[in-house]
C-alpha cells in the first residue's frame, strides 16, 4: 500500500497579499505532496491576480512540491472565462477543475488535471468519463460517505479505471455557492460594492441559530460549515481503501500544526503504532465527521445522531 500523501487545498478565505505570501513561504517547508493555489471562490478577490498565482506556483514548484492551480468554482461572466483560460494556458502548472467548463478547457489543452469536488462525481461511470477527459486525480463530493466511496472505487477498479483519489480531510466544509454575497448582505452593501469586507474575516463569519448553536460560516458568496471536518479518526481505514491523498484546507491559524498532526498520524499507521493525535486545540469549531459516517455532515466525531424525531 502506498503511503497517504498530504495536500494543502486552496485558501478559501480572502487574505491580504502579504498574508498569502507569508503563508506560502511557511507552507513550502511543510510535509506536503501537493499545494493547490488560487482564488476558487470569488471573482472580486484580486489581491493576487492570475499571473501572481502562476508566478507563486512556479516558485513553490521549485521546492519540489507538486503545484496545482485551483479554478474559480462559479464561472459566470466572460471575464471569469478569460481568467480561467489564462490559468489553463500557463504552460507549466496543472489545473484543479472546479467547473465542467474548466475541465473542457484543460482537456482541449491536452493537460492532465485534478477533478475538484464541485464536479459532482458520484459514481464510477462519471468517474471514468472525467478520467477520459484527462483527470489524473479526483476529489469526491464532500458529502459522499465512506461506503458510497468504497463502492465507487470498487466499481471503478473493476472497470479498469485508474485514478488517484484525494479526500477533503480537514477544515470547514465548502457547502454552497451563490450569486449573492452573504458577507456584503451582512453589512448592508451591494455585492458590486462589497468594500471587500471578507478580508476582515480571515476564517469567515460565524452564523449561529437563534439559540446560539454555531451552524454555518459565511464566506462571501460561499457558505461553509461551522464544524471543522476531521477525518483523522478514520485514517487507517482510509489508507486501507487505497486513497492517495488527504487535503488540509487552510485556516487563519495553526495550519502548520494540523499538517504536522496528520503527518504523525499517517506515520503511526505506517509503523503500526498507536500514536494518539489530538487536533481539537487547532480548531475553534467542533470537529465533525458525520458525512464520512453516512450521517448528517454536522454530526460531531463520536456522536451518533438519530435523525428524526
Amino acid at each position: 500500500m502506498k503511503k497517504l500523501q498530504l495536500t494543502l487545498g486552496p485558501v478559501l478565505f480572502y487574505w491580504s497579499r502579504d498574508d498569502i505570501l507569508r503563508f506560502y513561504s511557511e507552507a513550502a517547508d511543510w510535509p506536503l505532496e501537493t499545494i493547490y493555489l488560487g482564488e476558487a471562490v470569488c471573482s472580486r478577490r484580486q489581491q493576487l491576480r492570475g499571473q501572481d498565482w502562476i508566478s507563486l506556483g512556479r516558485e513553490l514548484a521549485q521546492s519540489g512540491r507538486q503545484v496545482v492551480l485551483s479554478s474559480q468554482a462559479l464561472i459566470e461572466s466572460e471575464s471569469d472565462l478569460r481568467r480561467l483560460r489564462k490559468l489553463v494556458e500557463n504552460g507549466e502548472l496543472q489545473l484543479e477543475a472546479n467547473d465542467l467548463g474548466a475541465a473542457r478547457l484543460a482537456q482541449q489543452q491536452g493537460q492532465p488535471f485534478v477533478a475538484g469536488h464541485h464536479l459532482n462525481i458520484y459514481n464510477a461511470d462519471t468517474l471514468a468519463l472525467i478520467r477520459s477527459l484527462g483527470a489524473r486525480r479526483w476529489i469526491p463530493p464532500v458529502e459522499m460517505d465512506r461506503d458510497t466511496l468504497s463502492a465507487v472505487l470498487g466499481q471503478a477498479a473493476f472497470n479498469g479505471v485508474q485514478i488517484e483519489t484525494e479526500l477533503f480531510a480537514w477544515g470547514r466544509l465548502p457547502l454552497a455557492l451563490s450569486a449573492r454575497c452573504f458577507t456584503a448582505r451582512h453589512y448592508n452593501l451591494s455585492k458590486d460594492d462589497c468594500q471587500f469586507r471578507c478580508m476582515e474575516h480571515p476564517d469567515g463569519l460565524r452564523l449561529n441559530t437563534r439559540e446560539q448553536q454555531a451552524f454555518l460560516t459565511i464566506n462571501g458568496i460561499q457558505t461553509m460549515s461551522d464544524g471543522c471536518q476531521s477525518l483523522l479518526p478514520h485514517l487507517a481505514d482510509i489508507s486501507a481503501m487505497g486513497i492517495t491523498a488527504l487535503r488540509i484546507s487552510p485556516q487563519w491559524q495553526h495550519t502548520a500544526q494540523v499538517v504536522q498532526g496528520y503527518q504523525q498520524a499517517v506515520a503511526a499507521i505506517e509503523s503500526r503504532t498507536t500514536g494518539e493525535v489530538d487536533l481539537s486545540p487547532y480548531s475553534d469549531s467542533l470537529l465533525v465527521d458525520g458525512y464520512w459516517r453516512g450521517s448528517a455532515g454536522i454530526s460531531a466525531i463520536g456522536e451518533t445522531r438519530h435523525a428524526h424525531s
Partner: protein
Amino acid sequence: MPATRPLPELVCPAGSLPALKAAVDNGADTVYLGLKNDTNARNFAGLNFDDRTAREGIHYAHQHGRKVLLAINTYAQGGDISRWHRAIDEGAALGVDAIILADIGLMKYARDRYPDLRLHMSVQSSATNYEAIKLAQDMFDIRRAVLPRVLTLDQVKQVIDHTNVEIEVFGFGSLCVMVEGRCLLSSYATGESPNSHGVCSPAKFVRWEHGQQALGARLNGILIDEYQQGEPAGYPTLCKGRFEVEGDTYYALEEPTSLNVMSMLPQIIDIGVAAIKVEGRQRSPAYVAQVTRTLREALDAAGRDKQRFAVKPAWTQALSKLAEGQQQTLGAYNRPWK
C-alpha cells in the same frame, strides 16, 4: 429591426396527473415530470408518476400537441446505479420528448443506448457558462441547457450568444439562492441533499415546537427559525431561516421570496431564450393552473406588444397570492439586490 423571435416555450411542472392536465389545459407548451423515486430532485411522498400515470399523462399532452420532459436530475449514487439507468430506459420506452439529466455519466448512458433521444442538461448540472454547456454538447449532443438561477440577464445573453444549444431559464416559483447542484446545506443538516436524495430540507426531519411565546421550526434538531404569535410561519427550508451573525438576527442567507420575471419578458424574448420554466412540481394542480394561465397570457401579450408590453395588475395580483413569502423578485437577472 431584428427578426421577430419565436416565443419561448412555456415549461410547466407536473407533480401529478391532475397537475399535468391543469398545465396542458391552461396553456403550457411543455410539461416536465419525474418518476416516483430518488432519480429526480423533487422526491417527495405522494408526488410524481408511476408507469400508468406517466403513460396517461404523456398521452394527454401529446393529444393536445404538447411536449413532455422527464427529469432524472439527481446524481446516480455509488456502485449500483441501475435505478437511474432503468429510469432512462423507462423514459425512452414511454416516448417522452426529452430527458432532463444532471449527471454526465448518465448523459453518456442515454446517448449510447438511445442515439435519437433528445437530452436536456438539467439546472442541477450547474452549467453557468457556455464552456460547460459545450462540453455536454460535444460529448452527448445535448439540445438544451437549463441555467441556474444565479446569472444576470446580460450573463444569460452572453451564454446564448456563444452556443447553439437552446437555453431555458426559470421564470416563476421558489427562488433557490444557491447555485443548483452546488448546495449541500441540506445534507450537512440532515444527511440528505438534492444531489444525493432529490430532496432539500426534507419534511421527515421537520419538527414544530410549540413554546409559550414562540413557535420553533427545527430541521433534524437544528433551529431554523422561530415565530412569535401572529407571525406567519414558513416551512423551514434551511437557507430561508433567520439566524444570528455578529449579534444581528435576520434572514442571513435568503428571505422567503419568489422569482417572477414577468416584467422582463420582452428582454427575455429579445435575447433569444428558448424556454421559460416554472418551478413547482411539489405544488397543487390549482397552483399550476393559475400560474400557467397567467404566464401564458403574459407571454402571449409580450410577443404581441413587444416593447409596449406592460404587466397587467390582474396578473400580478393572481401571482402574488401564490408567491412564497408574498414577495416577488427578479432574482439575479437584474441585481440591485444585496
